[in-house]
């Protein structure tokens, strides 16, 4: 059977999987942005306890495999609450991606020269105002590329959700592979879907970057 046949025959299942993959990625990214902001703020806090807490979280997430984190959350959560595998995956991906977002936010804030905060404070801005009015907009511009990169990684990372039975794109490929004994065909097809999504996202992000990274002259 040709690959073209495979593409058309698998289309309905793959599209269903794609929908779930995209939902997982979108939810995880949005929540991770929030987690990242909070953790970055804790990481740079004046209070040592908050810094340690944030550092512990970052060390744990960056030091263990994503799939292990997902399993721990999935099997851990189901023992205490009734939660679907989909939402377990969203939580797992959020916790994972949030750590990387936090580091991106922190690097963004640190990329803004100290003189910017000083001139903001020197005209009477509070710490928060200096951050909001002067530092954050500049930090945002400088982190757009890494933020976009992290979005792309998050899309591909959703594939681990199939390990906890979420019927995402990769799970559909696994099912088709098993049913047809043609693993290569269907894994290749799923790869094409991921590639298409990532290329589309890359193009969108590039447009956003072009609009924001350069200072108007």
């Amino acid at each position, binding site marked *: 059977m040709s690959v073209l046949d495979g593409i058309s025959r698998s289309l309905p299942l793959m599209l269903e999987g794609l929908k779930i993959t995209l939902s997982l990625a979108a939810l995880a990214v949005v929540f991770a942005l929030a987690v990242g902001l909070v953790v970055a703020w804790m990481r740079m806090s004046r209070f040592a306890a908050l810094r340690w807490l944030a550092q512990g979280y970052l060390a744990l997430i960056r030091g263990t495999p994503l799939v292990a984190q997902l399993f721990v959350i999935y099997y851990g959560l189901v023992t205490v609450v009734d939660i679907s595998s989909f939402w377990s995956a969203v939580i797992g991906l959020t916790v994972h991606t949030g750590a990387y977002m936090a580091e991106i936010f922190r690097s963004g804030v640190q990329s803004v020269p100290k003189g910017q905060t000083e001139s903001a404070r020197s*005209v*009477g*801005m509070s710490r928060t105002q200096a951050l909001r009015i002067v530092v954050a*907009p500049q930090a945002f511009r400088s982190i757009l590329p890494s933020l976009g990169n992290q979005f792309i990684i998050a899309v591909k990372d959703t594939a681990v959700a199939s390990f906890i039975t979420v019927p995402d794109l990769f799970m559909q490929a696994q099912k088709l592979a098993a049913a047809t004994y043609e693993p290569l065909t269907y894994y290749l097809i799923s790869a094409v879907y991921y590639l298409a999504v990532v290329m589309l996202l890359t193009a969108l992000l590039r447009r956003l970057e072009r609009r924001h990274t350069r200072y108007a*002259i």
Partner: protein
Amino acid sequence: MPHPDTAPQDTAPQDVPPLVRMRDIRKSFGAHTVLDGVDLDIGTGEVVVLIGASGAGKSTLLRCVNGLERIDSGEIVIDGRELRYDEKSLNLMRRRVGMVFQHFNLWPHKSVLDNVTTAPVKVAGRDPRQVRDVALELLDQVGLKRFADRYPMSLSGGQQQRVAIARALAMRPKVMLFDEPTSALDPELVGEVLAVMRDLADSGMTMVAVTHEMRFARSVADRVVLMADGKIAEQGPPTAVLDNPRSERGRAFLRQVESV
């Protein structure tokens, strides 16, 4: 009576309290003592030029006045109020103390006009339309009204520094601090910034400026203060300090300045 070398001369009359009063200011970074007991009064309307070798503590002293650095001990009184370090008092005090930095520190993501209007609107809560008019007037005074809609990165260093001066003035400060405002500029751009500072001095603004521009010090300063090793080594009218330094420190510094 203070030590004769440090006795203020040519300052405001004795019965008028100084606008800025510093007493026995001490400040260390770790084991390194940077300010070692500085007493300095700045009278209302007075223009004081601070000079001294690199590392003498000039920047640190200015930064202590507006609370960017915290003193270890001593007393700073600005406009009758003692400097305190809680957020609220600091922010209120800073509205009355303008600061101009060596590297301008304009906000690159905001237009020239927004650089000037942001603090009066967001910090002082003044009416945006009124602030806009005042800001355009200030930009006019520094010769940059037609650049109001440009972004800082598109201006020359001299122009950026003039915007920075307008930004500080927009808060209607009682005193303006300048930390080497022309040191980062190409030589041909120094004059335009000094001219703005001269106008400001003529308008009666109280100013403390760290600068190596000796001609400016001679023609604009009411008083020159020479710092060495975290102390005031000598102070007085520009001619006295710059032509006939009494202290060994003063003579050494001026030899160095003149040799470049």
